[in-house]
């Protein structure tokens, strides 16, 4: 009843190919955008302190959604598995730091996008083995990328400008007279920038995926030999998937350091983080943009909320809640994979199917 395509006629091809062909979807997206752009900046999340909402929940979730989108393009749409996500975020962060220090007057958004491009090139280089190997062997190859890059972040002191601390640090950056990054920036300003980038990148991803390139990725994923036979070139398809995915991951890495953490060491880009991002993709749902949002939100927010509620409502010790949230996340992964192997995105699809008939199922 609430979700029916009946009566929504299309008279042009363009309408048929629209990103959201259903009126309900359009309304839903508009509501979500209004919540993100108006409601949350004004009210925050009810019951949680505003600064905490911004700095510990909304901004990181948006950044990790970009990461998850990037990894999902590679893993969910192109079928190439990668365990180097953490390190590729590092490439984004370190290259953004280098660009920022070499050109101090450059707009920070341009720095972020340039760092995405740098990461895309690095991702393509480490994606080369995918032309020869797949599956488990490719996992090992990307794992090598992870370890190599981690090593480089420690050993190549040029990358962090020979700082004694061995880390990279953000500094105040202005844009149109407003401090947008660095310690003096307002959380709300950073929130809007990260949100806008997320919206733009989602729009870009959804269009690329529905287009020729995205279809070639999916053909490679589903059956590479058949795809090759009907004229998809594996070289361009696979490498473009690596490049596109790394572009997103690089941007998210730069955003993570300069719009959220403020400073970072190698530890923020290690292999355990790569696994976390992989969990986000798998829990959200492989090959789904909505799933990327859900996965990132669930994996990041649930532990934060468990800890905060446990501390303030039930008065448990912080470390008990920390252990509990680790257990909870592990159980959640197992349960979701058993109950719904296609992730949260599939649950959402089922809900939509049910809503078509509800409340009068026949």
């Amino acid at each position, binding site marked *: 009843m609430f979700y029916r395509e009946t009566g929504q006629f299309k008279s042009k091809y363009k309408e048929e190919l629209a990103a959201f062909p259903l009126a309900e979807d359009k309304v839903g997206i508009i509501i979500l955008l209004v919540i993100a752009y108006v409601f949350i900046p004004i009210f925050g999340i009810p019951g949680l302190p505003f600064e905490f909402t911004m700095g510990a929940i909304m901004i990181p979730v948006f950044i990790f959604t970009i990461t998850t989108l990037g990894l999902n393009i590679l893993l969910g749409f192109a079928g190439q598995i990668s365990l180097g996500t953490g390190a590729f975020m590092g490439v984004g962060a370190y290259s953004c730091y280098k660009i920022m220090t070499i050109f*101090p007057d450059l707009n920070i958004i341009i720095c972020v996008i340039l760092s995405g491009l740098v990461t895309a090139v690095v991702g393509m280089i480490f994606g080369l083995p995918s032309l020869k190997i797949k599956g488990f062997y490719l996992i090992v190859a990307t794992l090598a990328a992870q370890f190599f890059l981690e090593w480089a972040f420690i050993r190549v002191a040029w990358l962090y400008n020979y700082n004694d601390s061995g880390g990279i640090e953000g*500094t*105040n950056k202005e844009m149109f007279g407003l401090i947008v990054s660095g310690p*003096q920036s307002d959380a709300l300003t950073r929130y809007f920038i990260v949100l806008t980038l997320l919206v733009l990148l989602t729009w870009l991803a959804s269009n690329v995926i529905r287009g020729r390139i995205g279809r070639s990725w999916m053909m490679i994923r589903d059956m590479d030999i058949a795809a090759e036979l009907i004229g998809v070139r594996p070289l361009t398809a696979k490498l473009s998937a690596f490049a596109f995915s790394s572009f997103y991951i690089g941007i998210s890495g730069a955003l993570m350091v300069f719009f959220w953490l403020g400073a*970072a060491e190698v530890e923020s880009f290690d292999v355990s983080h790569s696994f976390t991002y992989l969990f986000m993709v798998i829990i959200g749902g492989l090959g789904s943009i909505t799933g990327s949002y859900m996965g990132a939100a669930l994996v990041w927010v649930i532990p934060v909320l468990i800890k905060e509620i446990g501390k*303030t409502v039930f008065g448990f010790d912080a470390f008990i*809640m*920390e252990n509990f949230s680790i257990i909870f996340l592990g159980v959640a992964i197992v349960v979701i994979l058993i109950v719904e192997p296609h992730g949260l995105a599939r649950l959402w699809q089922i809900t939509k199917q049910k809503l078509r008939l509800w409340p009068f199922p026949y």
Partner: protein
Amino acid sequence: MKKLFIGAVMAIGTFISTISLSFADELLVPHMTYRVGPFAANGTMIANGFTDYFLMLNERDGGIGGIKVNPEECETGYKAQVGVECYESYRGKNALVHTPNSTGITLQILQKAPEDEVPILTMGYGLSAAAKGETFPWAFNYPASYWSQMTSILSYIDSQTGLKGKKIGFLYLDVGYGREPIPVLEELGPKMGFETLLVPVAGKEMQNQSSHWLTIRKEKPDWVIMWGWGAMNPTAIKEAAKTRFPLDRFIGNWWSGAHVDTQSLGAKAKGYLASSYTTTGTSFPAIQDMIKYVVEPGKSKTKMDMPGKVLYNRAMFNAVLIAEAIMEAQKMTGKKMVTGADVRLGLENVKLDEARLKELGLEGFTAPVMGGCADHENGGSIFVQQWDGSDWIRQTDLIPPMTDVVQPLLTAAAEKYVSDKSGWTTQKCN
């Protein structure tokens, strides 16, 4: 389902009401702990020592200046990203001074401290350059920086066997923390006539150091200095014993010489040296009070065998410094409920001399700490302790650092840190 819904509504309701209630009259001392994760063995000791001291003050003296202290813990698991989450959760709650307990977290919040007006005290870790109070008004690293410590260790070696013509092995965890003292070695090597052998241990190889010790065996350094942490320490000591390296020529820094590092090895680690700035043991009246008021009645998570251990005592001293700073701030402002900015002034005016240490029940526990505006490190003297097979025994008097070597390095590092930061807050000291 309905019950569940009512339950959820009630939970959210209590949640909101507790948040609005959390601004009661108490002195909030944030404390980032790591009782979970790969370094939990060390983190638990540190967390307990810190918390117990404040709980003891609450029980014995009714807090500081009559106001109870709330040493609120936030669990980071030693992960830098979670540290930011913790930092945000303390915002807007009138936090007095941050104790990040991790260099990675310190770097992330160092720049935010002037904006939020909450000082950071990184006792024995963090950025060495923070010792320069004029450049870093909001960061403190009493009582010594890593660089001061390295010069003191070298002085000790010089006093034992002489340094000229010797070969010094430097075994370090290959992260920012471990690499930090290398400039001091490079600077002093030619001056004092010793040769340095760098042996980096990558984080992943912490528990597999056979190749590193093969290098040491081959190169035959006269002394080995270690900058290690967590599982790296016992592994290194074990390997040293296995390769027959004389353990009394093997000296760790203050994070490489705790009971958790040597206890499992027992007599095998006998002779191993480490620097420290806090004495072990429970003979001090302050620690006796902590046992009496907090540990024995079971008011904290501390087990009976923890007080007196290296890390427990050191974390307690961290708490002592904060308590003194809060007291000083109360005295200076005349207010009972002080703010972060007041405590910053308190930290700069801490007067922990011999008399005050005795008053606190900590006579001979550590070197006096006299706060200052320009000097946020103060003194930097350490002593050397030795593992006798069952406990750490203090071996030397306080060894002062080579100030003439360290100060120029600190100044240069502080200048370098702020060189690319626009709008950095500094202060002028008389």
